[in-house]
């Protein structure tokens, strides 16, 4: 006895059911992805602002690569600095001891950590440049040649670092992720030289103030001068028994240096320290720069590495110290030694005396009796980049000079000396030394070529200590393999770093460096 209610249900429900089943969600089998908060290269790089943002990402990698692991590898394994184990601090898997003693292997903590990061940081820069270069190749853009030149120069910089650390590497200009074999070191050198030379044509001499920090012709010339002065090493071959030097390029180094030196907008500052302060963006001495801001992700923070916990707030980590023989090598009258903190210590902001964590007046000693169990105060400390008054937390806005005019003078001096023009070389060195001593203490003009060579390398250390140059310098000078403070005589193949095992695993076509 169906009621009218159940009759109407009998009709309505199947009808509703039918509607519900037929109206399936739109695109019921459409599985194309729709990204929202991320975008794809197809819908980007369409105008100047977007290209500028793409370039900014490549420049940001210049910041990462220049002061990251590359700088560590140029200073800790070299005779600039040491990171001793201090109580519970800084053992870190033994990696710092490995760096000091040159005991790294392809699969050791240093290789899987710092060396691997140096590899990926520079190659990430290459890949970012490649994405931009490939995306804008066929687009009609204003300033396209200049944009292409900037990206190519930055890519060449990353390749320069890779070649310096590892020798020949895969040269890639497309965006495909694929295993590729290594080029020879000479071929990598030639690629960098060509890229820099071609990029130079489309780069400006200077930028308006609103674009300070972008690449100029000066960047190219400084990099070329450095490339040529290292040519014997960079174009040589490394076997398990060591480095076979390639032909020198002294005259090319002089020519490239001269192009920088003839640019009147660059000049040495009266006070060397002006190149490191937070306002160093106004320094006329800086040729190639990694520009920084006192903001997270854009800043410089060397204070955390070296200063004692109680010298600054937020608390630094009390790590990196100057190797005692290096500190002692400085002339006590050399003003540049003032950037190394020694003796009783103060808070660097308030200048109030500080104690160590044991409550004793903090005193940085020159000597470090045992690098496996150092005290809080053992070792003198680099404090070349002073704190930024406008800092936020640990973020300081001091710019980092990749090349300064002083180094260009020293490159030219080195090349001149190698060509037998020792007197001219000493004159240039004395130009750089002049501001470091009052009264002046110039090098004697009577030095032999060999004496001058030693003096120039020493001068480079006095002038450029802590600036990420020393490993390359020691290899070029031939002091890299010798026994030195807390380091035994080295295996000859250590002039190249091992390719980290993780990278060999990822790319089976990568041949390991000889000896490793």
């Amino acid at each position, binding site marked *: 006895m169906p009621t009218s209610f159940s009759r109407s249900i009998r009709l309505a429900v199947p009808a509703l059911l039918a509607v519900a089943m037929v109206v399936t969600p739109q695109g019921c089998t459409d*599985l194309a992805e729709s990204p929202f908060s*991320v975008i794809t290269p197809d819908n980007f790089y369409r105008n100047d602002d977007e290209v500028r943002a*793409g370039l900014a990402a490549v420049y940001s990698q210049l910041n990462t690569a220049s002061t990251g692991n590359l700088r560590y590898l140029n200073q800790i394994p070299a005779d600039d600095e040491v990171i001793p184990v201090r109580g*519970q601090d*800084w053992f870190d898997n033994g990696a710092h001891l490995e760096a000091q003693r040159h005991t790294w292997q392809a*699969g050791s903590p240093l290789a899987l950590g710092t060396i691997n990061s140096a590899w990926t940081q520079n190659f990430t820069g290459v890949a970012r440049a490649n994405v931009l270069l490939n995306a804008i190749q066929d687009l009609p853009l204003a300033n396209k040649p200049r944009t292409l030149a900037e990206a190519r120069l930055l890519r060449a910089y990353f390749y320069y670092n890779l070649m310096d650390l590892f020798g020949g590497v895969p040269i890639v200009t497309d965006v495909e992720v694929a295993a590729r074999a290594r080029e020879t070191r000479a071929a990598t050198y030639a690629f960098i030289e060509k890229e820099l030379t071609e990029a130079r044509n489309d780069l400006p001499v200077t930028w308006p103030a609103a674009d300070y*920090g972008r690449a100029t012709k000066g960047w190219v010339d400084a990099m070329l001068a450095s490339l040529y002065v290292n040519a014997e090493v960079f174009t040589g071959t490394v076997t398990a028994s060591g480095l076979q030097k390639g032909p020198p390029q002294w005259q090319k180094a002089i020519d490239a240096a001269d192009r920088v030196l003839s640019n009147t907008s660059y000049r040495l500052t009266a006070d060397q320290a002006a190149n490191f302060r937070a306002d160093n963006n106004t320094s006329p001495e800086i040729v190639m720069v990694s520009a920084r801001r006192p903001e997270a992700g854009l800043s410089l923070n060397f204070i955390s590495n070296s200063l004692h916990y109680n010298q600054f707030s937020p608390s630094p980590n009390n790590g990196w110290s100057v190797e005692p023989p290096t500190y002692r090598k400085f002339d006590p009258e050399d003003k540049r030694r003032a950037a190394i903190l020694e003796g009783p210590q103060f808070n660097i902001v308030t200048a109030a005396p500080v104690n160590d964590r*044991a409550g*004793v007046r903090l005193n940085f000693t020159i000597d470090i009796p045992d690098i496996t*169990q150092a005290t809080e105060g053992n070792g003198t400390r680099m404090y070349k980049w002073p704190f930024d008054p406008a800092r936020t937390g640990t973020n300081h806005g001091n710019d980092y000079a990749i090349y300064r005019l002083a180094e260009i003078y020293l490159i030219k001096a080195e090349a001149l000396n190698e060509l037998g023009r020792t007197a001219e070389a000493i004159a240039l060195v004395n130009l750089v030394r002049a501001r470091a001593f009052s009264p002046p203490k110039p090098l004697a003009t009577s030095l032999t070529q060999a004496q001058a060579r030693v003096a120039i390398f020493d001068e480079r250390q006095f002038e450029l200590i802590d600036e990420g140059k020393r490993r390359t310098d020691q290899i070029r000078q031939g002091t890299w393999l010798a026994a030195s403070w807390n380091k035994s005589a080295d295996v000859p193949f250590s002039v190249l770093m091992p390719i980290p095992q993780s990278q060999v695993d990822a790319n089976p076509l990568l041949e390991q460096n000889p000896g490793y």
Partner: protein
Amino acid sequence: MRCPRLLLGALAHALFSAAAAHAQTPTGSITGRVVDSTSQQPIGNVNVVIDGTGRGAVTRSDGGFLLRAIPAGSYRVRAARIGFVAQTHEVTVAAGAVATVQFGLVTAATTLTELVVTGYGTQRREAITGSVSTVSADEANVGQVTAPTQMLQGRVAGVSITQNNGGPGAGVQVRIRGGTSISASNEPLYVIDGVPINNTAVEPTSLGQNNSLPRNPLTLINPTDIEAITVLKDASATAIYGSRGANGVVQITTRRGREGRPELTYDTYTGWSSPSRRLDVLDGDEYRAFVQGEVAAGRLAQTRLAALGSDNTDWEQALLRTAGTQSHNVAFAGGAANTQYRGSLSMFDQHGIVLSSGLQRLSGRINASQRAMDNRLRLGFNLNTSQVKNDYVVSENTGGFTGTVFTNMLIMNPTQPVRVTDAVTGVERFYEIGTGAVPVRNPVAIAEQVNDDGISRRTLGNATVDFDILSNLTAQINAATDRSNGVRSAYYPKISPLGASTNGDALIGELSNTTNTLQTYLTFHGSLAAHSVEVLGGYEFNQYSTVSSNLEAQSFITDAFSYNNVGAGAVLQSGFVGSGRSDSRLVSFFGRANYGFKDRYFLTAAVRRDGSSRFGSGNKWAVFPALSASWLLSGENFMRGGPFSELRIKGGYGLNGSQEISPYSSLITLGTGPRASFGETGVVGVSPNRNPNPDLKWEQTAQWNVGVDYGLGGGRYTGSLEYYVKNTNDLLLTVNVPQPAVVADRLENIGSVRNAGLEYLFDARLLSRADLDLSLGLLGSVERNSVVSLGKTAFITSGGVSGQGQTGQMSQRIMPGYALGTFYGPEYVGVDAQGRQLFAKYDVQKDATGATTGRTRNGETLTPTANDYGVIGNANPNFSLGGRGQLRAGRFDASFLVRGVFGQDVLNNTALVYSTKGNALQDKNFLKSALTDPIGITQPAIFSSRWIEDGSFVRLQNVTVGYTFTLPVAWQRGHTTRVYVSGDNLLMKTSYTGYDPEAFTSSGLASRGIDYLNYPNPRTVLLGAHLEF
């Protein structure tokens, strides 16, 4: 792929014609009553089913049932309920008449339900050919259950549940037959009332300085609403869930209303939790004595004495507390013949044993069902909504470098007080060792001063329509939506050392997840002579969407705003401010056929075709098939009269997948992030943040399962034994890519992992009398996991060690031939005369290709290098056991649950870092065990085999004693009240020296067995009552 509209259109059409045809069929009804054969008491909630039709009813509390609109004919009617042996009676239905059938059930030892939820339907237990376990909430919801996952602990063989830590609502690692994936998720699929749940975090996890793991998203489900949990373990059972079934499926069925008198119940308990173990650090007197001794011996500077105060503070005791919990739950249920309903409301308030931590849940649930058209149409509706407030501590899951509560609890100088009175103002304040961002902070102050709160709201609703197109063909629709919104807010006040350097730091993170699901499917039942068949086919669509946003500001004028007025902060932290959205879809077609012959031979075949938007363009679709069979030997004539009341062998094979990767993983995408300074301005860069992988496809797990189910002694003893092998191939693995690449790695399908295991289950009903019942259960499992291949990668390092001086130190290696969770490091051999740690030194032999061919021991070394590293432990247990018992004697009842896990290694990262006397050089406290340790005061903490401890344990998980009676009041006539006392984690036997060997610290890919400063596990005692009205 064509849309299934045509299929559905045809379905709708069939439905119309069937509706029209229906009126002619002559029908009758079946009615009857189910009682306990011994006591003759009525049994409610019994499933009464007509064999081969899927038609059925559930008995009321008076044991009665009614089945209407049954086409005239002869039937076999089965009555089955948990704890009873099923019974079948023949019945003949005549048109327009009512047939009566009575059941008298006998209690059985088995705890398995008779009708088992198997995904898109139910199946009789005898007909199940795969590996399926069921847990009844009546038995498992004892003690303090915050989330339903706890109910599985120790009750299902092959399921391991590790709560991340002892914090309220802590996340869990649920592993069904072991974790098989390295980069993708190993968590099972959760299905609530037929709706697959997106079990991702509902609240932003780590925020600011609090690097906590997500809390358990299932805390949003009130355990009292749960009827049963069914775990599908093997691939033949989970294949119907295809791409989401590789890690097993946990199906939660909620309680519903029944025909009969309305029921009103009230459940409540009050609990007290206290720390179950302590980490022994020096007390004030011991610390003073140590420092004075070291100063006298010249190993510590004289000035060290100045840091000594005159107090004797136990920081662990100051920070931990006895914490209360209360739970209230009201439920009403009832219904008439065609309408049933149930509603519940609950409040749960749990305080953590660490100051200022806790969880508070309010939840409401309502469900209703309606039958119409002579029971041919069945409508169902479920709605669950809940709100969970989480109060977090900094940091409850990992230690962090400095600053967190647990770090400072261990290192804070015990000779100093918790609070001091300011000499100038006379106001009481927390003691700190100095002003501003000091390196060691008062942990009580951190807990009290830092606010870190989360509030999540989740609504889960679904509506179902079942329609019998023909008497043996049913169409079903299930439409569901699951929406959650979680807001996490934190404020680090300037008064705290944690907020001093930023002048106050406020952070807010918001996360919203939406999942919409539509399932439509047809089920056909048929039987002919001794053959019975059930065929199922359908379509499912899931759409997932996640939206998030973040806000942070620093430099506040006052702490008074807390996180409630971010605009009061002078400096907006643009690095943290942001928002994001991601979507993905899963589209599926599935089918299953069950075939039974003579109720002895069963065959199940299932296939699912899944399409996921998350994979590469050519690999979005995959097919997951499965086949399984069982043979009821005890039904054969040759077995009659033997010892076995039941004996069944079964076997199956199936393929599952995993799609648990983030959306867009196959695409090259650009993101904002790295900036550059142009002209002293930060220019936001846009760059690729993912390497494309157009070949990205499903991770596939193939699983074999064989097993035996047996019953002895007329069903008094039952048990099962199962063996499985799981091979996971095309592992979704994050691997380094050849450089140059925009980022160092990408997700690829590389390598394989193998899991094999044995599961054993035994239940005994030792006594079964009218007033006395005693049953015991035992389960055990053995699981072996091994990485078979990682493609061209030799090994992956994982398990990062936490703590000072441990940067870059890894404790585990994933490598072929070894289990996931293999510890890798130097072997500790002792201490030299100078108090320096010595490690075994090895020479390594290599062949011409540079591959290692052997290691030989060669003396000792102070600084172990790569050659000295080797395998030093395995975080996986050799085996695990669970035992439980239940006793009912008259009005009393009692139960216990014991769990044991044996042979697993645990890295005691806490001891590694805090067993260092050298802490005293910095006025920091340390673990008492270091006092007798020969290691010198100047020595760093070095990871080695010394810190790998045996993590075997036996834990008395729960003991409950209850008493049931009827209150002498009018309203309780015919109903009962039960009061009980229950204790959780009462005893633990272990040689492990940390808080708890069952801890989880997230520290890298597939890492396990690492314990670092985890929130301690409480011991809980509670008093509860269950009242019926």
